[in-house]
């Protein structure tokens, strides 16, 4: 089926991505006019009916989150765009903000209107300085075009901490505290920034909201699967001819993403696929056969114990030593663990030792026990999911060279 461009601007859209003309060319001005004419409950009904799920990794139904924040008691509410994007192999939010920053910002304004927030934050990683500037320019366009309608939008720059992308750590970062995750519950929808109800969404989720209201629910659900309508950005990197970000409908065969001339355009390097790491550093290694036989949807991938995660697809040809990759991932988690909880602080260290000693076969029981303890007893997603890529590697002996 090839590439679809809805979140990414279609190729014929030529206006300056940061301009008022772009607002009109993309229909985002109409989207705002549409929601301002609705009551907030109706806005949320649309989001719920569209079936949009969070694109930051957890795929939580967006409409449910909006309802919770709207209904949560509290005078002051906040909305946050999460543009921290620091997961290995993940660069879709960067490309989206480069090509269409007004989309995600429009989604943020719609979110603010729907949940009743007057204050919004865009939290962007500190290494994305050029993107931050694009976002600032786009925000200025919104201000001058009188599209903000009293919502105060502030851009906050991260400073190099992977964990700050976790939603509650991000709140602490904005509040001027150490970006360490908080224990949940209470959930952000009830107690987020400064203990007020807070809606936090990924950049791509907000871009989905903007295109939804630039059209309507039936337009939105034309693509995708009944359970997961819409399109997904996938970020292809490594041994693939056309590395980059592409927009595809949910349910597309992974094989198409690899070989369609408008998408991946075939495996590069040796030309023979060794494995795909799907979803990021805490993702799942898939064998070439699994890639050929599965689709980009949650149900199909669940059978493999995999998830779409952020949409990262990292390609490795058959010459790459995946043991080295697994060791690099283990080191990353050991370094990025904030150290608050023991299972994660100690567990990420132990896993690193095991992996560096290449003892994944002899100590497979230790790995499984550690993974279980980390999943059950870590405060946040980092500790809970850090062992996943290693486990998927262990479970697939065909990914290891048998010397």
């Amino acid at each position, binding site marked *: 089926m090839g590439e679809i461009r809805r979140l990414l601007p279609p190729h014929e859209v030529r206006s300056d991505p940061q301009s008022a003309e772009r607002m009109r060319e993309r229909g985002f001005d109409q989207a705002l006019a549409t929601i301002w004419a609705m009551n907030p409950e109706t806005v949320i009904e649309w989001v719920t009916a569209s079936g949009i799920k969070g694109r930051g990794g957890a795929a939580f139904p967006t409409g449910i989150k909006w309802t919770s924040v709207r209904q949560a008691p509290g005078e002051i509410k906040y909305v946050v765009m999460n543009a921290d994007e620091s997961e290995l192999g993940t660069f879709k939010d960067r490309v989206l903000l480069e090509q269409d920053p007004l989309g995600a910002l429009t989604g943020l304004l719609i979110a603010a209107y729907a949940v009743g927030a007057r204050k919004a934050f865009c939290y962007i990683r500190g*290494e994305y300085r050029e993107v931050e500037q694009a976002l600032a320019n786009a925000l200025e366009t919104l201000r001058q075009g009188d599209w903000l309608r009293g919502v105060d939008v502030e851009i*906050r720059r991260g400073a*190099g*901490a992977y964990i700050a992308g976790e939603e509650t750590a991000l709140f602490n970062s904005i509040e*001027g505290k150490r970006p360490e995750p908080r224990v949940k519950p209470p959930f952000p929808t009830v107690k987020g920034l400064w203990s007020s109800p807070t809606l936090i969404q990924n950049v791509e989720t907000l871009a989905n909201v903007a295109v939804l209201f630039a059209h309507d629910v039936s337009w939105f659900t034309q693509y995708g699967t009944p359970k997961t309508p819409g399109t997904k950005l996938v970020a292809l990197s490594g041994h693939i001819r056309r590395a980059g970000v592409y927009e595809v409908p949910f349910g597309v065969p992974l094989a198409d993403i690899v070989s369609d001339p408008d998408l991946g355009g075939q495996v590069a390097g040796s030309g023979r696929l060794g494995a795909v790491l799907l979803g990021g550093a805490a993702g799942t290694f898939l064998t070439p056969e699994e890639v050929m036989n599965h689709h980009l949807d949650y149900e199909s991938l669940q059978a493999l114990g995999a998830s779409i995660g952020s949409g990262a697809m*990292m390609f490795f040809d058959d010459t790459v030593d995946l043991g080295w990759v697994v060791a690099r991932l283990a080191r990353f988690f050991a370094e990025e663990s904030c150290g608050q909880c023991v299972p994660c602080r100690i567990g990420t260290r132990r896993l690193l030792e095991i992996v560096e000693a290449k003892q994944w076969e002899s100590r497979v029981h230790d790995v499984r026990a550690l993974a279980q303890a980390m999943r059950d007893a870590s405060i946040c997603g980092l500790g809970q999911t850090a062992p996943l890529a290693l486990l998927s590697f262990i479970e697939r002996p065909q990914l290891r060279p048998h010397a």
Partner: protein
Amino acid sequence: MDTEGVQEVAGLLKDLPAERGQLLPALWRVVEHYHALTPALIGAVSEVLGVAYAEVYGVASFYTLFDNIEGTTPVHICTDVMCALQGAEELKAWAEQAAAGLPITVKESACLGQCDHAPAAWIGQKILRRATPQVVQEAVKAVHHG
């Protein structure tokens, strides 16, 4: 830090509300101006924002982008998985060669979110995509002169 130094930091932060929530933006301003966060500067921020020294220190020390060696400018070479596949280690060696004898620190970075243009580097506020040894060496020298 002497009163004058604190005054200078206060001037730098004068349009920020003096509150805890402005700590991260305040630290960014100070780092961009002085290229480092010395204990004296942390003390000045603490005084200007009215946040305890230990708290400011605890926050500042959490973030890798604030972890600069005093008197040197950092340059970042991504050595994470996707860039490593495309020769990042070699690139780092070239950067170190160019930086030799200059007040520049070459730092290894985790994924910079540019894997579609690997190998990537981040030098002097600019992202370098598909970085070659030559481009990196030139950028390192430009940081020194700039």
